């Protein structure tokens, strides 16, 4: 019977107790939150309209012609034009870029993260230099390619020149991502390995690197997707020329997808504008595929074996 009668008897509720329940609606706070959400909305609306735009604009050309046909020089044959030489050029350039920049970048990251003694000035200098390089505009790498690699080294406007330049351009991305992955490996794993009498390289090779695989792979994919979309430096390296053949080797002339798209954008014909949109869709699909791989790797990271 006498269940907590105190409140009923007095009939009094302390004012603050009620106030606690009534959530004050702060107008300013709500508006602020809406404004913040609006910022993200603008960015994503831009992204969505961009994708929808190129899909619609390129729809008629989104078929096999895109990858089976070569670009056509004749205005009258514009609707038979494709992007095969650019696609194969991109594959060649990116494969070579991967072969050069991934081993170098991963090795450099291992040095900086696992070997370098940061009390030495030259190691700090190496580190500062990488950070700086990451901020150098990509067109400046084109100038490096033009002035040194193509001319002084005499490699000319070839696939190998393009791949070297792109490798150097994305090298900081690979290094920074790999270092982050290495740093995420707990020090206790290294200590455990050393305590068993493992050498430094054994520890790095057999414990640290495997534990850092997913982060490294994600970084590698990120770097390569950046290289695939990069056009500016290659403009200076002969990629804008009209190429109607697939590359035959590393010293072949070439073009790549973003540059082919750039060329199409400049041309006044409506069919070619359409083809540019279709080319963009193709480029975005390639990047999307790469990013999905990265996400899958990242999600599997938690599970070991």
């Amino acid at each position: 019977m006498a269940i907590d009668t105190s409140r009923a008897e007095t009939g009094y509720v302390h004012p603050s107790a009620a106030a606690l329940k009534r959530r004050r609606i702060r107008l300013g706070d709500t508006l602020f939150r809406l404004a913040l959400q609006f910022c993200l909305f603008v960015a994503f609306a831009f992204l969505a309209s961009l994708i929808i735009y190129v899909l619609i604009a390129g729809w008629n050309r989104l078929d096999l012609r895109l990858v089976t046909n070569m670009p056509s020089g004749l205005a009258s044959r514009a609707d038979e034009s494709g992007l095969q030489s650019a696609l194969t050029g991109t594959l060649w350039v990116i494969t070579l870029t991967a072969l050069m920049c991934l081993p170098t970048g991963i090795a450099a990251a291992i040095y900086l993260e696992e070997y370098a003694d940061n009390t030495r000035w030259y190691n700090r200098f190496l580190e500062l230099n990488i950070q700086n390089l990451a901020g150098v505009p990509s067109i400046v790498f084109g100038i490096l390619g033009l002035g040194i690699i193509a001319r002084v080294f005499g490699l000319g406007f070839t696939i190998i020149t393009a791949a070297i330049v792109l490798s150097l351009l994305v090298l900081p991305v690979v290094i920074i991502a790999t270092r982050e992955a290495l740093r995420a490996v707990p020090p206790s794993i290294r200590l455990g390995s050393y305590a068993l009498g493992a050498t430094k390289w054994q520890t790095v090779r057999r414990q640290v690197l495997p534990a850092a695989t997913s982060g490294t792979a994600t970084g590698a994919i990120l770097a390569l997707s950046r290289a695939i979309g990069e056009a500016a430096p290659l403009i200076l390296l002969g990629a804008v020329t009209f190429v109607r053949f697939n590359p035959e080797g590393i010293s072949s002339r070439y073009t790549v997808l973003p540059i082919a798209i750039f060329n199409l954008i400049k041309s006044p014909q409506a069919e070619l504008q359409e083809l540019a949109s279709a080319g963009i869709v193709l480029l975005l699909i390639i990047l999307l595929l790469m990013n999905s791989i990265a996400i899958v790797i990242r999600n599997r990271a938690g599970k070991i074996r």
Partner: protein
Amino acid sequence: MSETTTIAPPDLDRRSGVKITARQEQSTPASDRNGGVDPIIELQDVDIYYGSYRAVRGVSIPIERREITAMIGPSGCGKSTLLRSLNRMNDLIIGARVTGRITFHGQDLYEAGVDPIEVRRRIGMVFQQPNPFPKSIYDNISYGPKVTGMKVSNMDDLVEEALTGAALWGEVKDKLKTSALALSGGQQQRLCIARTIAVKPEVILMDEPCSALDPIATAKIEDLMAQLTKQYTIVIVTHNMQQAARVSDKTAFLTAEVDKDGQRHGVLIEFDDTNKIFSAPSNELTEAYISGRFG
């Protein structure tokens, strides 16, 4: 305290003679028990620095073969530092430096030409937090023998032997290929011990191996340690005095002393038979510490 141990590093040829002198000053009962002439590791007037900071000052201790030597003392007094110096794990810390003499079978561990990798293979280490490799149980064990180039006729046998030696075989024999990270904390720590004995070291250093474990897991590790002394010499750092009293044969009590320039250094207060330390310590600081009055 440290004055008693400031003996000049002995000449290799006259080692045994000097050693006995050193021990007589330290503790007679300990050496009585097994003849007193079989230390596998010997620290003589050891100072350890981190950069210019001297973390440990003037420690001299003999570590007897196939015994358990415990190091106790308040936190920050340099126990881990001292332990790491015994297998040159301190080399991995930039700026860490050891002076004085630490010998293993009479060989100065810090002499030029001594390979820290080889030292660590002979003197293994188990850490406070279990740190299994993110690999299978099997690979955790086989890693050490592989990297140290041990000649192994049958790796499966070696894995079984090591796991049996660490009293873990029964629990994991059906899941050797599963991730070591799926084991419980206590099992992980025993796996780390198994991994250490798989490379057949002579000495196992343990830095608070039970402080991350529950009482049942702790009891298992303590039983295991008693087993292991049949083959191995163990040095254990612990902040748990009951544990030191339960498992060890000898106990070193260290504490931090503040010197005139205001710096704290770890110093050895007393080293003796565990029984003696816990029943009749000769130093009042030890007495105060083991009775829980500071630390």
